[in-house]
Every structure is written in structure tokens, then in C-alpha cells.
């Protein structure tokens, strides 16, 4: 069976951002995440994989993760941990801005110190507001594992930020 262009576009629209963000959570490198996400979808197209929206998201995350691993393996030199994971906050009032500025910087620095597993789960939960069940199905792990990583992440972040 061949993937039609329409089917492919649907999958792309639905998942591209998620996959790119997932990669960013892992490596903290904006350009690399974009490249690898693009490769992920190219692979789906070339291999003629027919994905059912909502059902096969796990496979996309798997492919993206594998691509990232083989990239870092090939390119060991560049595998330095990023200094910070940057993100843009939503709109804020000027007062909030003042309060948040410092906190955001602290978070950005603290996030890179988390183990990769915990960081991914934490950011998927916070930035994308996914439920634990959704995260579990995308990463093809159990909900229990998500909970465990999440509480680990929160404990570590708390320590870092209050330090």
C-alpha cells in the first residue's frame, strides 16, 4: 500500500510540531531538532508507512528517537550538553514579566541538568499539556513510568531552583 500525498500531509500537520519539540527536549538544539524531524517524516514517506492518526504516533516518536541516537553516535563531538533549553513564554503582563524573567532563566538552566528521560516527560507535560496517558502512548512506555519520571523531574527541579 502506498501513502498518498494527502495522507502524508495529514500526518505531517498533526505531528510535525510534536516530533520537533520532542527532539528539542532531548537535545536542546533547535536546528538539529528541525533537521531530524524533517528526516523522520521523509523516512515515513520513503518507506511507504501508512500511519493511522492517533494510533501510530508511537512509531513516529520511535523513528525520531532512533534518528537522534544514530546522529549523536555519528557525531560524537557535537554531543555536548546544551547550556540551556530555551522557550518562549506566552503573553504576560508587565508585572508578571518582571517576576518571571528570573524564574524562566533558572528553569532554562535547570532543565539541561535533568536526565534526558525526565526532561522529555516534564516538558511534554508542561509545554504541551499532554496527560500522562498520552505521554505514555507516544513514548511507548507505561503510565507508571511517566509518573515516576515526572516526580523525579519535579524533585530535581525544585532542588535546583531553590538552591
Amino acid at each position, binding site marked *: 500500500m502506498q501513502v498518498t500525498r494527502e495522507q502524508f500531509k495529514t500526518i*505531517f500537520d498533526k505531528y510535525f510540531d510534536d516530533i520537533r519539540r520532542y527532539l528539542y527536549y532531548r537535545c536542546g538544539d*533547535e536546528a538539529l*531538532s*528541525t533537521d531530524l524531524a524533517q528526516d523522520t517524516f521523509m523516512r515515513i514517506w520513503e518507506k511507504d508507512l501508512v500511519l493511522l492518526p492517533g494510533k501510530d504516533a508511537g512509531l513516529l516518536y520511535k523513528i525520531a528517537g532512533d534518528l537522534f541516537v544514530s546522529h549523536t553516535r555519528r557525531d560524537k563531538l557535537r554531543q555536548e550538553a546544551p547550556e540551556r533549553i530555551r*522557550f518562549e513564554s506566552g503573553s504576560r503582563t508587565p508585572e508578571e514579566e518582571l517576576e518571571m524573567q528570573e524564574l524562566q532563566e533558572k528553569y532554562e538552566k535547570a532543565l539541561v541538568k535533568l536526565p534526558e528521560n525526565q526532561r522529555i516527560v516534564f516538558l511534554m507535560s508542561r509545554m504541551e499539556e499532554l496527560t500522562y496517558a498520552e505521554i505514555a502512548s507516544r513514548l511507548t512506555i507505561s503510565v507508571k513510568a511517566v509518573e515516576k519520571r515526572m516526580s523525579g523531574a519535579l524533585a530535581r527541579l525544585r532542588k535546583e531552583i*531553590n538552591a
Partner: protein
Amino acid sequence: MNKKQEHKDLSKHLFSGADVPWEKSKAEIWSELEQSLERKDRAPVPVRSIRPSRQWLALAASLLLLLAVGSFMRFYSVKTYCPAGVRTSLNLPDGSVVEINAASSMKYHPYWWFISRRVALDGEAFFTVKEGKKFKVVSDLGSTEVLGTTFNVFARGETYQVSCHSGSVRVNDLAYKQSVVLSPNEIAKLEESGGFIVSSLNNQGKNPGWTENLIMFSSAPLSLVFEEIERQYGIVIETPEVMQQVYSGNFSLDQSVENILSLLCLPFDLEYERQNGNTYLVYPSVD
């Protein structure tokens, strides 16, 4: 509000609606990707269907192959020829053993063995047959059938005789369609007029003498005795006339042919002389 709680709330706030500061938007990436889709748009893989005629061809080919393999198995045969002066022993595929006497040949179909146990024999052989399906020995004049037993077949020239040493065998006269069933220690000789004469064996309870390196004669015409010696030693014995004297006795095949000939000649007033090579002349004493 303690500091912990405060942070928690703030961080919730912090992340709501947050995103990574992407350089390239999703739309930009799609347009890039779309171009490479354009390039990679594949020519549809041609689907080749097997036409019915090909199917028939394939069917015919496999039938032919089956037929070829089948007839190979059916007709492939192993032929063992045992020249004069030599005796040999052969294992058949099911573990039956054939001892083949000198100047005899035997043929069987090794790949067809488990469907039909059948050997063709010209000469003399002693069979020790494993129990199982019918085992058949076919010669020009007669055939012998058994299930599992030991027996000796002598099929040379005009003579066809079968001796049964254990179990039982059925001996068939191929020309006259007569048959006889032998019990152990019986021997059947085919008559020229058809039918068999059954008599009891002289060396009861023993395998044929030749399988134990003996030749035995009981009231045998001397010409037959010479023929047997010719076969066992791979020599030629010439006599001025057909010798009709009757002889009974045993020889061990371990001794030399000269020794046997002198033993044989003495009671009949004969003499022998070695010609060139392997030929011996036997003639009546002159005085």
C-alpha cells in the same frame, strides 16, 4: 504562601502557552519537504500478473519434474557382478544381507526399495531377509517370495533351485505358473518338465556350504562339480567328454585348486594337467 508553593504556581504559569523559539516555521518546512516529495514521487511499480498460460506451464513443469524424479527412483538400479573366483556380500537398504556366490550378478532398485523389495538374480546367492514386506527374488526360470527368512537361490543355466534355511519361502516356476512353499531345511529343484521336486537338505540347520567357504556335492554329476570349481577358482576346466559320474563330497575352498583336482581325479581314474594360464585339462588315465 511558602516559597515552594509559590514556585509551583509560577512555573505552571510560566509554561502555559510556552513554545520553543523556532527559526523555521512548520509551513516553511512543509514547502521544503514538498519539493523533495516531488522529486521522490515514484514511478508506480509495475504489477506483473502471472498469466494463466504461465500457470499451466508451471503446473506442467512441476508434474514433469515429479515424473522425472519418480521414474528415476523407480528405474535407477544398482547392479552387482561378482566374477568367477570371488564371493561378496551386499547390504540392502532395509538391512537385509545378500551373499553373492562367484560368477553371479544381482540387480536391485535402491530408491524403490521401500515400496517393493525385489531383486533380480542370475547365479547363486544366499539371502538373510529382514522381516517386512514381501521380498522377491526373480530369476529367468523362477522367482522366490518371502517375508523374512534366510534362503539360498541357485539360478544358473538350466538349473533353478532354492533352499530354505529359516522361516518359509514360496518358490514360483515362471514358465508353468506352479509354486511350492518351502519349510526350513527343504530344497526345491525345478524340473525340466515344470514343477518342483522338494527334498530335505543334507546339511540341516546350516547355511549353504559356500557361505562358509565349503563346496558340497551330493550325488552330483561330475560335470557340475567341475563347473562349480571353475566358478569358485576362476579357472577353465576342459574335459574330452561330458562326465556323467556321480560324486558326493565336500571341499574346503581354502586349499589350492590342484589339491582339489587331485582329490577328485583319483577315485574316477582321471588325470589332470595344467595348460597355459588358467586352463586345466582333465582326461581319463591312459593305462
